[in-house]
């Protein structure tokens, strides 16, 4: 049977969010970010958000616009511009709280939430300053003994010795999200969604880790057409995990959304330059962010 029709607008999604929520954002760096939804949040009264993201301009824009209390990230980067300038400024002025995790830890935190377990163990992070600065992280001791024959790598005299230990590992806490926002190349009206390009990123984990998930998409198609877009491994998000579907052609602009479009590098440069002065930011905001999505897309078209 066809799934329910969950089509809605960006502003309707924002109306379902509230200040103080923890919101996960899909994509990776400056790739396939649900930017039309981010722009809708920028136009709203929402504030005090905790953002979980493999961060790009989504994080920078939200930080610069005073929407953020805390950022939990594996990194925040514009890819072709390695440092996200607005996130960098927010960190240096201390205007936000930050949890900077190892990239792999973020995957495990999302997976833990998606599987409804309180944590997942990993070796990543042990010995590093992540444990020193992210004070809420804890370790866990394995209930199973690990037996290892020592190699020559640990000092010399102990090489060849058989040792046994209940290993201590980092317990990555579940990243339980109030809401997740992701962008997909195609979807049907009920939220079955298809990623194209070469990497699903962690979008399917974000939607499973969240209470409510919203999928913006380049195009809404009949369900019968989804499987023809790519091999079935690309049908990665199920309607069961989706609360709302937003048709947003070019919605990931200015980030990359392959194969539909590549990153708008010229626009990204213009965005990055707004970190240079308040005047530059105000001008950018007035021109591109204080208009609705149709207005934004029209402005961008004028630039081409």
């Amino acid at each position, binding site marked *: 049977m066809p799934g329910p029709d969950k089509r809605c607008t960006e502003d309707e999604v924002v109306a379902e969010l509230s200040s103080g929520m923890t919101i996960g954002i899909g994509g990776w760096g400056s790739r396939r970010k649900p930017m039309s939804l981010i722009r809708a949040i920028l136009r709203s009264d929402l504030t005090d958000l905790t953002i979980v993201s493999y961060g790009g301009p989504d994080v920078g824009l939200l930080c610069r616009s005073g929407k953020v209390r805390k950022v939990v990230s594996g990194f*925040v980067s514009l890819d072709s511009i390695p440092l996200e300038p607005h996130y960098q400024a927010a960190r240096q002025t201390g205007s936000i709280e930050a949890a900077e995790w190892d990239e792999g830890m973020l995957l495990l935190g999302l997976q833990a939430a998606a599987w409804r377990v309180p944590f997942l163990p990993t070796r990543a992070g042990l010995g590093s300053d992540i444990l020193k600065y992210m004070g809420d992280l804890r370790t866990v001791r394995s209930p199973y003994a690990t037996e290892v024959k020592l190699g020559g790598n640990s000092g010399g005299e102990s090489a060849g010795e058989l040792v046994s230990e209940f290993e201590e590992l980092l317990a990555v806490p579940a990243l339980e999200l109030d809401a997740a926002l992701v962008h997909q190349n195609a979807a049907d009206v009920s939220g079955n969604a298809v990623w194209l390009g070469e990497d699903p990123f962690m979008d399917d984990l974000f939607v499973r880790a969240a209470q409510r998930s919203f999928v913006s998409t380049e195009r809404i198609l009949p369900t019968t057409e989804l499987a023809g877009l790519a091999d079935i491994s690309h049908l990665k998000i199920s309607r069961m995990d989706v609360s709302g579907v937003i048709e947003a052609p070019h919605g990931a602009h200015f980030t990359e959304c392959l194969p539909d479009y590549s990153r708008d590098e010229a626009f990204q440069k213009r965005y990055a330059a707004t970190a240079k002065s308040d005047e530059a930011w105000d001008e950018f905001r007035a021109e591109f962010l204080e208009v609705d999505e149709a207005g934004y897309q029209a402005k961008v078209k004028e630039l081409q």
Partner: protein
Amino acid sequence: MSNASSPTSAAGVDGGIDAGENAGVTRADICAVAIAEAFRGDGERLCNPIGNLPLIGGRLAAATFEHQLALTDGFYTLMDPQSPDLVPAIALPEAERVAQRTVAHWNPYREMFGLLWQGKRHVMMGATQIDQYGNQNIAAIGDWTKPRRQLLGFRGAPGNTINHTTSYWVPNHSPRVFVQAVDVVCGIGYDRAHALGPIASRFHEVRRVVSNLAVFDFEATDSNGVATMRLRSLHPGVTLEEVLEATACEVVVPKDLGVSRSPTEQELAQINRLDPRGLRLSEVPEP
């Protein structure tokens, strides 16, 4: 690690071109060879250099003496070029990058984490700061809680260093990079690994640090038996004094210090083919 890495074997005794006599060999070429040497003996695992010169060096190793290495296209696939001359050049325009890769495996980011947690990977990362034990900082300068300068964050450095072999590339060797103590420990060094104990640190190996001046390894130990940074070879034309002046951390200098070897004719041809636009020369200009 084998003992083939004694200081003398790093010297130019393999039929390399004498850099002093051959104007065609640049410091950047020496660096590319030193980087390639870091991957020697790795066999069938992922060679994952990050940055232009590391990419040239890693691909040079695959195209010359370390044919079994798996290579990344820099994004979502691993590629198996079917002959040395088909190892793709770096920094190709997107269409060419895609056309020239021989895709052997799908490797989206989540799979990369799976691969690195399993351990068959040797990464070469950059380091904004590095200390005598090989602790690396790419996160921030100053106190992490409110940094003077926010950098990349921890990225994958903690997970990389505790799970598999890591080397570092420093194009701008200075006392601000080779420091007594890094501001933030991202990639963990031998003192941190030692403190974790032999089981937790059993996959840890910081193998090599290659800079624009010299090559370092960790085949010396401090008074507590912890592996510590050792000067392995000087690049041709670089003096010991020059390196020590540019290094603020402790470094062991062996008696029989070698000279970083020059590329063979074949290697030089590959370097030029892998980097046709000479990007390595803007990263490491001629002294």
